[in-house]
């Protein structure tokens, strides 16, 4: 972890904020120094060592696709529609069981409305037409010859964190509360190159992107975004895009709501007006408390949550813990994350794992010495554009909350980016609270 610190001063091992939050700069010190400074000497002596059974027999044979350890079987996505009934299928990422910032491809969240199409990449076509000088068709082979660009980016469903609109905190894991966001390295062709090749009419303002799935899902995207940092993504974490994430190509609009990052992309219609498609007219126009609604929300605003510890974890006793979580913003890099262990009465600055990239996950960490008493953990993020994650009271004042407790899988409303609070009791049990 690269954190600039003044080396002339020894970091304080005394708490810098309430309930045992420590100076983030101690994470710079070697593990030995850290352990020596923080662990009590009352731990029971370890047993003498002997070879374990797995060290004495031939191991498993290497397979073409590397399997996960059988001890990691619970690290998987949760499904809302496992039998593929005639409705949307959601797969939520187990963010409470992952570390770092990359979401492995098999664990990346997906929302699929008609199943994933079985696209033959040799026959797939992308067409650009409408208000262009010359309509063009691209094959995957031809696109692979363009200069490819690689970047990290989170993709988040606008309905992620919808359980947080409940009027009472729903007891559920990070996977259930915030599992409709993931972060990957995407490689593809900058969309601006392809749009320039077709020759955009100066009066054009919008691009209607459409998929090759059964429902030909389509969304209207401002031309400015398409020409700025949009990517026609062909690879996900180094391999071809996974089937449920849009194989063989998807639109990547860094920081924009997931549904606009059209998967199985087959058509870009350049126009001077939005199409007001089903999804932008209904699902992704969030209803406000006064009965009006936002339209063209697009941006996933700055957000963070603590993944470790979180609901479903248990602390085994007082002592040192590494609090960590994820922060991200649709408007740039994460600039700062503050952590509180006393429900927001006092805050300490978290260490940010480098590299911090725009519109991508940043992992934050906070050293913590738990004294065994009840605490409430929170995180709050700022981005480099100066946007700040709203406190829950601020958020609810503007956006409201449900009048009853919805099902945890319900999409009560969209674009929640306020704070998540975890209470930990003296038994070490983690619960979801509003604070």
């Amino acid at each position: 972890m690269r954190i600039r610190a003044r080396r002339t001063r020894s970091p304080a091992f005394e708490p810098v904020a309430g309930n045992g939050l420590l100076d983030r700069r101690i994470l710079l010190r070697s593990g030995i120094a850290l352990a020596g400074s923080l662990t009590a000497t009352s731990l029971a002596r370890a047993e003498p060592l002997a070879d374990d059974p797995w060290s004495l027999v031939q191991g498993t044979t290497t397979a073409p696709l590397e399997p996960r350890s059988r001890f990691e079987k619970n690290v998987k996505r949760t499904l809302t529609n496992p039998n593929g009934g005639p409705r949307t299928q959601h797969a939520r990422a187990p963010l409470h069981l992952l570390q770092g910032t990359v979401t492995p491809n098999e664990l990346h969240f997906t929302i699929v409305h008609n199943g994933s199409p079985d696209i033959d990449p040799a026959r797939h076509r992308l067409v650009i037409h409408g208000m262009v000088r010359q309509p063009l068709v691209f094959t995957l082979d031809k696109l692979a010859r363009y200069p490819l660009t690689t970047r990290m980016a989170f993709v988040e469903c606008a309905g992620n964190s919808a359980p947080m609109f409940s009027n009472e905190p729903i007891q559920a894991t990070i996977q259930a509360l915030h599992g409709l966001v993931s972060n990957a390295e995407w490689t593809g062709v900058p969309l601006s190159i392809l749009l320039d090749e077709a020759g955009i009419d100066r009066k054009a303002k919008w691009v209607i992107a459409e998929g090759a799935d059964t429902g030909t899902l389509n969304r209207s995207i401002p031309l400015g975004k398409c020409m700025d940092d949009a990517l026609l993504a062909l690879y996900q974490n180094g391999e071809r895009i996974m089937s449920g994430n849009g194989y063989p190509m998807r639109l990547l609009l860094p920081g924009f709501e997931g549904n606009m990052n059209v998967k199985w992309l087959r058509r870009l219609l350049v126009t001077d007006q939005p199409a007001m498609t089903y999804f932008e007219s209904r699902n992704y126009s969030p209803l406000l408390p006064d009965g009006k609604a936002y339209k063209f929300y697009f941006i996933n605003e700055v957000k963070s949550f603590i993944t470790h510890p979180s609901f479903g974890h248990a602390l085994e006793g007082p002592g040192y813990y590494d609090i960590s979580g994820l922060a991200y913003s649709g408007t740039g890099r994460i600039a700062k994350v503050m952590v509180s262990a006393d429900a927001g009465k006092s805050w300490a600055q978290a260490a940010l794992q480098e590299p911090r990239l725009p519109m991508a996950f940043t992992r934050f960490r906070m050293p913590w010495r738990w004294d065994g008493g009840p605490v409430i953990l929170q995180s709050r993020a700022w981005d480099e554009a100066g946007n700040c994650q709203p406190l829950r009271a601020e958020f609810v004042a503007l956006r409201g909350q449900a009048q009853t407790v919805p099902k945890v899988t319900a999409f009560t409303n969209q674009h929640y980016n306020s704070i998540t609070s975890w209470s930990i009791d003296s038994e070490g049990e983690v619960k979801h609270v509003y604070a």
Partner: protein
Amino acid sequence: MSMPRPLVPALVALAINVTPLAAADAPRLGAPISEADIGAWNITVFPDGTGLPPGSGTATAGAIVYADKGCAACHGENAAGGANGGLVGNPPLDRIEARKTIANFWANATTLFDIIRRWMPWPSPRTLSNDEVYSLTAYILALNKIIGEGDVMNAQTLPKVKMPNRDNFIIRFPDRI
């Protein structure tokens, strides 16, 4: 909560006016195609009616299509709801979790034609004739009392249908459009 500030709005404007030189340097491997040859894919319908095909339909004809195509299997008898969402209803938008319906929420009648044509009937989309799509659109709009029972829906009349909630939307980030 403040408006999220964009980081570099000026760059967006600059990027749109790319120089011809940059375009000339690109690989230029796209194959030319005519709009006519794209026609089978070009099914986008716009609020002003752009993209609506020839044809027409009424609620009476739509009720027959609704029954023939088995729409009730998901959407229920009289589109009142079943295994999947109902298509009628006008509950008040008095809470943030209120059910958004065609009558109480949708801003454009053209959206209904577009989603029926591109997505229905499950699981065999794009098998309806234009008349069948116009008829189903008329049937659903009439059930919601947005048009009359005898009103004919076609490329001229559909864009003129006034949806009750059309003026209740606020553009979230005008500077991003």
